[in-house]
């Protein structure tokens, strides 16, 4: 018998790494990120350039599937970030590529 996957996680079980972190993204009229972070926060940073955009559709056999639009951006200050928009929930995440 295979025990259900939803059993209590034990210390010796696998734990995912690089889990997407939710992030607040301000988009332009085309849906492209222009700034990242909370408006009230002083740390809100603008996006200098969109480097690359790609879309991932996966697990289509498990509705609604996994639909993500990844956007690699160059931030003001020079750092690179990879963001993605979950197309099912319209929420944004940041994740290491």
């Amino acid at each position, binding site marked *: 018998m*295979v025990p259900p996957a939803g059993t209590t996680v*034990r210390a*010796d*079980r*696998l734990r995912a790494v*690089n889990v997407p972190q939710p992030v607040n993204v301000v988009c332009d009229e085309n849906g492209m990120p222009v700034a990242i972070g909370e408006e009230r926060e002083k740390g809100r940073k603008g996006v200098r350039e969109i480097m690359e955009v790609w879309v991932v559709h996966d697990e289509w056999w498990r509705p609604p599937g996994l639909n993500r639009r990844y956007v690699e951006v160059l931030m003001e200050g020079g750092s690179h970030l990879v963001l993605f928009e979950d197309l099912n929930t319209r929420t944004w995440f940041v994740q290491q590529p």
Partner: protein
Amino acid sequence: MTRALSSRSAACLWVPAWPLHCETLRRPELVGTPHALLAPEDGRRLWHLSREARRDGAKTKMTVSQAIGLCPALALLEPDPVFYDEQFAHLLRRLINVSPVIEPAELGRVYVGVDGLERLYGGPEEQLAVIVEAGGREGGKTDDYRLGYATGKFPAWVAATRARPGEALVVPKGDEAEFLATQPIAVLPLERDDLDRLRQLGLNTLGQLVALPEEALTAQLGNPGRAAWRLAAGQVLDPVVGKPAPEPIMQGLSYPAPVADSGMLAHTMSVLIEHALRNPRRTGWRVVSARVRAALEQGGSWMIDTVLKDPSADRERIAAPLRAKLEMTPPTGAVERIVVEFTDFVRGTDELQLFARDAAAAARAGRVGALRSAAREMVARMRRTMLYRIVEVQPWSRLPERRYALIAYEP
């Protein structure tokens, strides 16, 4: 020269998947759960698996991601080869109390010479019971043991492989050839390709193989074929060959001027231990007990000794308890001459010797020891392990969070 001890009658004690057996001794909560050891040379693949994991479809050499897919509850364990070596050394040490003729073959497989034991313990069944009792002491789990009893090592080994878990198979004296004839050819020490070739020729049992002339097999497979034919025919009944423990190994140093500084004495002790470990007589053996004695300036003497809980061939492991004793009971005067003596030994396997002789492996063992104690302290303070190791799960996945995962790292 010391004469080798030998015995034609052999008992073979075999614990398949010895590393897994050791892990369940250390962590009894694993019993009855699907768990697997990661391969020491490739942490992405499985090495040894519990029965429950196999039942769920996981297999040796399978990748972690495949195995997790088949068995989501699978617990993955980091391999700890030094611990497995130590446990095997303990087993050998206990068995030497049953018979002086002990020949380790590999981790988890040891031959016990049983010639003459009938007067002490009775027939083969009684002798095997004593061996199991000795092997299983200190909380050992004896259901994993398989025992074979026969004349010669090869029939004893084959009998052990045919025995049910926790049981023994005795081959009566003189029945070796008859017993071997019904066994599959997989028991022969041949390369997998050679075994496949024999199967393609329709040869599945040792009896079918022996029906061919010896020359025919030699012509096909060369010398290994000849050796295999003779084993299969029961013509080669190798005795168990024990090795008498070496005489005490001593290493001494006379100081040009008497020394009273304990730091200097500790350093000398460490250097002498290193030299004594390099003695050729020590090769193949781990040190169980050691002592340090000294001649004092005023004419008296001083001595400390230690019995190692874990037999070792590592300088630091031997020196540490002696240093502690030196601190507690230092010499009562200045030391003129100091001698380190190894007085008791336990036999090691070739695998074990990899750790004993290889300086890099010894250093690794030291690092693992330090890491283990740091991890223990962390668990005591944080209430949970904070050390993890990254393993590849689906490195090809387009979703970054699916590529790698963390497993608890218990050094």
